[in-house]
């Protein structure tokens, strides 16, 4: 579904991603792990062109995306993104946050968009908060609204950039639960996270990045039990202890 081929990305002198090859299949849940600075967030952001890759190609459904020629807005419509710091629109209510893009981009009617938004809010357990503003919500609630907002565009892939890193520990569970439900529904997901328990339970594949390269990948059962690379072992020891 998404295919990255020899993808490289630098920020100035710093090479953040080096020759990344990766294929993500439909309904697959892929978890990216790695120390901070390993390039995992950049990799995720390259997938929906929030960062523009320097070299290599990205194809989506076997179609290569040319940065100059392809309408990137159309590509992004199809990919939901959830951010570490939620990035809800503070001047809009919860339901307006969710309906904004469907109305503005997909030209849905307000009624249609509201109906869909209420369905999604029910799904993430926040139907009663539709008319609240983001500053009145807890971190966990904000993130669930952000997930609903991304889902409102009917994306075929969901990208999560450390969705629980900014949350108080007791609020992490509700967001992970929402994500688990999504995975169960067959959503294709790429997740950057430090939640190893979640990765073990939900991921189809775990990928370890270090210094801008994929150094190891595998199904979680294998990956966590018998990591092959020493750097993976060290990293896992650090995060699991």
């Amino acid at each position, binding site marked *: 579904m998404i295919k990255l081929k020899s993808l490289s990305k630098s920020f100035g002198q710093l090479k953040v991603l080096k020759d990344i090859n990766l294929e993500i299949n439909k309904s697959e849940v892929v978890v990216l792990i790695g120390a901070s600075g390993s390039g995992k967030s950049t990799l995720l952001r390259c997938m929906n062109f929030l960062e523009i890759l320097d070299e290599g190609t990205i194809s989506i459904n076997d179609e290569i995306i040319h940065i100059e020629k392809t309408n990137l807005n159309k590509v*992004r419509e199809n990919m939901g993104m959830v*951010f570490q710091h939620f990035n809800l629109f503070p001047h809009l209510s919860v339901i307006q946050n969710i309906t904004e893009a469907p109305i503005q981009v997909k030209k849905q009617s307000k009624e249609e968009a509201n109906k869909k938004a209420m369905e999604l809010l029910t799904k993430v357990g926040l139907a009663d908060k539709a008319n609240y*503003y983001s500053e009145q919500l807890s971190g966990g609630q904000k993130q669930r609204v952000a997930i609903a907002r991304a889902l409102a565009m009917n994306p075929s892939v969901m990208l999560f950039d450390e969705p629980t890193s900014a949350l108080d520990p007791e609020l992490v569970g509700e967001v992970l639960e929402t994500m688990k439900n999504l995975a169960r529904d067959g959503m294709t997901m790429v997740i950057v996270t430090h939640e190893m328990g979640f990765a073990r339970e939900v991921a189809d594949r775990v990928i370890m990045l270090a210094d801008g390269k994929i150094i190891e990948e595998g199904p979680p059962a294998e990956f966590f039990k018998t990591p092959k690379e020493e750097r993976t072992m060290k990293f896992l020891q650090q995060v699991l202890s």
Partner: protein
Amino acid sequence: MEFLTNIASIFQKHGVEFLKATILTVELTVVSLLIACIIGLIFAFFKVSNIKVLEKIANAYIFIIRGMPLIVQLMFLYYGISSIFVLSDFAAGAIALGIHSGAYIAEIFRGSIQSIDKGQMEAGRSLGMTYFKTMRRIILPQSFKRAIPALANQFIIGLKDSSLVAYIAVSELFNHALSAQAYNYMPLETYFVVGIYYLILVLIFTLLFNKLESRMDVGKEKKHDKVEVAF
């Protein structure tokens, strides 16, 4: 005592005339600030565009305008504009004042746009919205709210600066003061009276802006009522 009776006689003689001139001052201020807001918004966009040429144009404009006294610009633009186009003195004055305030307002807008977390733009773009749509729907409403206090300040400066167009023959408030004192030989009293007119004008402007500010926060207060339920 004589001072007070003189003032009373000026009010009597020129009160209505000054009031009419005050209306012209208000018109001039409103029109010039509208022009300034449009110019300011355009140049603020130039500055945040990340396009080198546009940034340079905006910087040059702001440098030139901020670097010269308003009266010099007024004269220059007045004679410049009216040598190219046939314009009324009012229009020439309003345009010149607008171009001047525009530079300051550009900086106000730029600052408030840049103060919005960049995650807001990313969130908008990640939902498939274009740069301009995200600007218009997400960034600008938030940054406009933040710009209000600084804008209020600039608007009051603009109101007072409008007195300078008296020198290009626009018969606004200060222009009337100039001719009145030349005719009644009471400069001190005349300027005192005109000063009061300006004070009242600024007071009205300030009150209007305070109202606007609190109005934009009304939503916020309403929201706080619900906080208890939210958590």
